């Protein structure tokens, strides 16, 4: 297929990045294509780090060949021969035979796909941190400028996509593309990964997958930790955004329990580089775990830390805590913090 044909099809299919910013794929491709650097890289990111989210695994396990096809198409478009697959090392262990044979096939065609086994963590999937790790540096985020598209691996233009995007690229090329995405459903009867239409509302997804709770509930959407928290009522109106996940919680979930889960995630996943995320998340966890059962949540102690993380963290991990925290307080508890 002529390259520009594929680009036009991608634009027409309205493929967007799966990193949360929903950046149009064709623009990213054009930007990197236009650069004259002799060396360019493609990176496939399959290291999902949000708790219990498994859609990268689902895609790799079920559509391995498509993902590799997407990577080769992308490399061919960018006229480069080298790519990295940043993969959760547990996933790689399980899929080694399948992946290694595809790597060998690609190599015969002249495309080198390096496997980078990532220690399962949230930060290992953060773009700057994964580029640092590939370069052999400490797995911690980079400054936001210059972007990886301009100076990524060893300063060369680097196109980073989520594994889902490469699957989409392959589907577009094969003419089998449908506007769907994958989502992990958690806290439901039949938890697992489902393919859902892009425009489907959250409540509808639960219903159609036969997962609509028979108890009073609220949901966290778009990330097992960093996703937005909403009521069952709000879930009727809202589409699936951000990372593909929906987690259902009983309305009986105690605030201490919910916040403890939230804060523990950030304390565990912080890379340790910057003050608010490293020390703030640890203090948050300490405050909530040292709290006596059924006592009042000390919002006045928690809020300043959340504000510092939101406004001054080095990367998006620390900054992302404010969304689940404030949306939970506002939508579920009815308080502004």
């Amino acid at each position, binding site marked *: 297929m002529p390259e520009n044909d594929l680009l036009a099809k991608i634009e027409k299919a309205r493929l967007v990045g799966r990193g949360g910013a929903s950046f149009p794929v064709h623009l990213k491709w054009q930007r990197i294509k236009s650069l004259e650097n002799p060396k360019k890289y493609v990176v496939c990111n399959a290291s999902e780090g949000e708790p219990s989210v498994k859609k990268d695994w689902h895609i790799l396990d079920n559509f391995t060949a498509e993902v590799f096809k997407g990577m080769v198409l992308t490399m061919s478009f960018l006229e480069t021969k080298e790519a990295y697959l940043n993969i959760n090392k547990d996933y790689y262990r399980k899929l080694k035979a399948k992946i290694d044979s595809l790597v060998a096939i690609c190599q015969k065609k002249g495309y080198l796909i390096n496997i980078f086994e990532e220690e399962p963590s949230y930060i290992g999937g953060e773009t700057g941190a994964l580029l640092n790790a590939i370069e052999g540096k400490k797995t911690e985020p980079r400054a936001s400028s210059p972007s990886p598209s301009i100076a990524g691996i060893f300063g060369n233009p680097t196109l980073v996509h989520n594994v889902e995007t490469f699957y989409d690229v392959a589907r577009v090329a094969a003419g089998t593309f449908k506007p769907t995405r994958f989502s992990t459903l958690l806290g439901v009867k039949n938890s697992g990964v489902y393919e859902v239409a892009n425009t489907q509302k959250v409540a509808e997804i639960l219903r159609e997958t036969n997962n609509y709770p028979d108890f009073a509930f609220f949901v966290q959407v778009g990330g097992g930790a960093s996703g937005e928290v909403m009521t069952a009522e709000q879930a009727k109106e809202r589409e699936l955004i951000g990372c593909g996940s929906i987690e259902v919680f009983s309305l009986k979930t105690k605030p201490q329990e919910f916040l403890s889960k939230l804060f523990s995630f950030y304390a565990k996943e912080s890379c*340790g580089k910057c003050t608010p995320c*490293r020390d703030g*998340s640890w203090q948050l966890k*300490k405050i909530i775990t040292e709290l006596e059962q059924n006592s009042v949540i000390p919002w006045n102690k928690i809020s300043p830390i959340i504000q510092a993380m939101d406004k001054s963290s080095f990367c998006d991990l620390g900054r992302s805590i404010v969304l689940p925290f404030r949306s939970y307080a506002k939508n579920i508890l009815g308080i502004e913090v």
Partner: protein
Amino acid sequence: MSKMVTIYIDEQAYQAEEGKSVLQIALENKIDIPHLCYHEDLPIEANCRLCLVENEGKTTTSCTLKASEGMKINTQNEELVKIRHENLSLLLASHQKNCPKCQQNLPCPTFALMQKYGVTSEEYDRKMLDLAIHKMGSAAEFDPNLCVKCGRCVNVCADIGINFLKIEGSGSDAHLAYNENPKVDCIYCGQCTAHCPVNAIREQSHLEQVEAVLADQDKIVIAQMAPSVRASIGEEFGLEPGLNLEKKMFTALRQLGFDKIFDVNMGADITTMVESQELAKRLKKKFAKEETVLPMFTSCCPGWVKFLEFYYPEMISHLTTARSPHVHSGAAYKTWWVEKIGIDPSKIVVVSIMPCTSKKYEAEMEKLKFEFKGLRLKPVDYVLTTRETAALLKKNQIDLSKLTDSEADREGEYSGAAAIYGASGGVMESALRSTALMLTGQELPKIDLEEVRGMKGIKRAIIKIGDHEVKVAVVATARNARNILEEIKRGEANYDYIEFMACPGGCIGGGGQPLTSTHAIIKKRIAGLYDIDQNKTLRRAHENPVVQEFFKYLATKPSLAQEILYTNYSAKKKFE
């Protein structure tokens, strides 16, 4: 020169180079923005998150924000003040109760910051990691439980060329650690301590011991100050870098209770004499086509010597056997001066005031002890860094800027050649001024050797001495030392004499110097040292009458001379 732009900080217009960081512009214009991880000579880490400003409605770190035309910066809005306070409280959690300086009510840079921004360090409890204080020889130490992970020590250690330090672990377990590679060791230069903003990595303090001997009526306590200290200690009192404060320091040291005020500069003149004789001897052999080891290396920097003994032990025969200045003068005062005055040498305590942490390591060396009147003596008993000395003065409410001048005691007399020992190239220049006379019987036609001066990491020159051309190099930092040593090993270079220092700019940029140290400030201090030399009547070591008197004394005591003038070297293991 880059393009100049106008930026507005809190509605005030400033001219600045385009692309320069807003934090650097603010600092240059004396606008207060708190910061811990930023250091103008080091890579930008942007991890402390204190230097926050508002730009186009967004909160951002000013260290990463590059100036562009018309930029409007707010440094003071309510939210910024609140978040900075929060981040500072998080960073300094439990600082005061873990900080030895704060515990002893000594001035601590962190305490000053806490007071300025209304943080007590008790807002939060710190996560205490089960990690001990790590000692780097007898020079420095670090406490992972005081560290704020700013990375300045790690970066400066890499810059020096050692890579001994690293931040290990993730999240709240992130902590300062050392490189366990058996082929990597600390050289005690102490640059880390001069770059730590929170006293987590610091010199091993001798303050308590010095205070104790000052209070002991039985002891005769001698102060001897290194060349560099006089040109930098003023910075601790808000004075200009490079301002020569020796006369005020002499007054201050007397006020602290030191009984005699001598000078390491006198020791530097001794070192020059010993080292020049050795160089002249080796050169004469070379000129006579006899076997000798060249190039000769200087050895007055213990950090450099440790570097060579650990990384290049096969090259130790290149080192001059001359001891270093404060060791020379310390032993001179404990022998020649003691005998001249007629006092009991066991009563003497020598305290060196140095810009350096490796001098603490050197002072403890067993091999430097000497026999005198039935006693086995250390040439130097204690070493205070410039920072420790300033802390001692402040603790005693002595404000250097307000003191009257006084002179050192007579045996502290020194030449201009000694004054420049503090600057990279100074030892070389001093030695050549004397070597020339020893080789040719004549003084160098031009006393100022401009070609070996300045901040450049490697300086190369050919100096004409009589009919001979002497090929020299002057090297600062281990990184540059490695390059030159490899050059020699490859047989590409035929130098005669090389000066090596561990720190940038030489001792004047030493690891014991005030935290104000930056390359720009080091340059100003260097200018101060060359001014002292310019204004001296005596400008050559061999002209110093005190040194002449000392050598006359030693002339009849060859075994004592051997013991207190010379040393030897050996290969070193990690942590040795």
